[in-house]
């Protein structure tokens, strides 16, 4: 009950903010504009999902950061932390709200792409392409990055840490994956190490797929992608568990 109430309150709080809808609108428009009406292949959907996902990463820290650190930053925490709630209720409700908000924001991407279908003469609608892009590419990325940004802001008690920490995380894993793939020539490991699957989808698959494959294969069901998702969801869960252990419903840090 308390967990649900914390989720509901946080979700509604951010859903009522103009900022949230602005993010949605931007993602929708960008996804719509990126769509090439002559090429709505599953590969193009995947590519656009990954690209708009990079844009989303600039918005996500605001969502995760404020869900995580608003209490401390508005100095509400003495009132909130003294209510009889558990750490799991509190962190769980807040995190889930941030994740669901982000997931809904990212829904603007397939919607934006679908809106392009309204034009006459566009290729047939293949729901599986959108579903797999959203479900396997966008959602796990949202989960991983929300977990990282949320945890940083909770433990450092400042929303802005979400931004810097999130960007740092993004740059670091991207660089490591790049070095492993291009310098050490271990592409299968490199594919695993990039939680945004940017490298895999935008570079490796783009270079190796034949036009026929691009039109037919559902990227989201590629083995290398699925392995990557599983690995990083595991990492995200571990990060959340760590946060739960370290977090204190108390006055001071740590």
């Amino acid at each position, binding site marked *: 009950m308390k967990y649900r109430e914390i989720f509901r309150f946080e979700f509604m709080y951010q859903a009522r903010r103009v900022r949230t809808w602005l993010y949605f609108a931007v993602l929708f428009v960008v996804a719509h504009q990126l769509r090439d009406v002559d090429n709505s292949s599953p590969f193009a959907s995947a590519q656009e999902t990954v690209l708009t996902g990079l844009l989303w990463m600039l918005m996500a820290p605001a969502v995760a950061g404020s869900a995580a650190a608003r209490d401390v930053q508005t100095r509400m925490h003495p009132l*909130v932390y003294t209510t009889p709630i558990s750490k799991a209720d509190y962190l769980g409700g807040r995190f889930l709200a941030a994740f669901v908000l982000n997931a809904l924001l990212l829904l603007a991407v397939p919607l934006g792409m679908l809106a392009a279908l309204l034009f006459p003469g566009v290729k047939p609608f293949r729901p599986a392409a959108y579903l797999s892009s959203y479900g396997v590419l966008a959602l796990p990325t949202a989960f991983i990055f929300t977990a990282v940004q949320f945890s940083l802001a909770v433990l450092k008690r400042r929303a802005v840490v979400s931004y810097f920490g999130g960007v740092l995380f993004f740059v670091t894993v991207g660089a490591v994956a790049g070095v492993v793939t291009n310098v050490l020539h271990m592409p299968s490991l490199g594919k695993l190490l990039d939680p945004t699957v940017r490298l895999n989808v935008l570079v490796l698959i783009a270079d190796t797929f034949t036009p026929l494959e691009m039109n037919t294969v559902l990227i989201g069901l590629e083995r290398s992608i699925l392995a990557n998702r599983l690995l990083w969801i595991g990492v995200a869960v571990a990060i959340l568990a760590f946060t739960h252990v370290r977090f204190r419903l108390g006055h001071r840090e740590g």
Partner: protein
Amino acid sequence: MYPKVSAESLLDHFAVLKGITERRARTEVVEALLRKTNLWDVRKQKLGGYSGGMRQRFGVAVALLGSPKLMIVDEPTAGLDPAERVRFLNLLSELGENSVVLLSTHIVDDVSELCTRMAIIDKGEILLEAEPARAVEELQGRIWRSVISAEALPELEREHAVISTKLYAGRTVAHVYCDSTPGPGFEPAKPDLEDVYFSVIRLRTTRFGGQVAPALSARKGVEG
């Protein structure tokens, strides 16, 4: 406070967190508390637009959810305008009828207006524990005032147990503690709680401490 939410919905949220899960009970409690804290008319307003005093009262409303038996308020009137301060003290005194309110403040007037019992704490030590009215009474006839120039102050402090000095219309008004009249140039002053406070705090560390102690500290043994 979260700036972008109304008092009503935030209080309702807190009610759930405090375990008042049944919707109708919650609506009732929330309404009662908003009325009690005089926030009912502004319940739909966003907290971001609340004044300091309104926020304080909202904080009390949150604290009162689940009817606590003991409430500790730390410097509640700091930064409030006079009207808000009076309203807040009235609220606290009302709460004091049903539960224990522990008020920590450095504003002496708060204590004299509100408290039935008080303690003066300095550096972690309780120097005096008394009823404010009784403590003031104890000082009756022992506080003297003298209007002096600033230069004469050091000498006065050597001779007498000066407990406080204040500027009044550009002149220095000194309050002195003395069991009998300290001499010419002094007139009896009507003691107030501030005199109690200063005589306990200021004279503690001076050679006059021994004089003041018996009059006030006697109570400590009786009541403490």
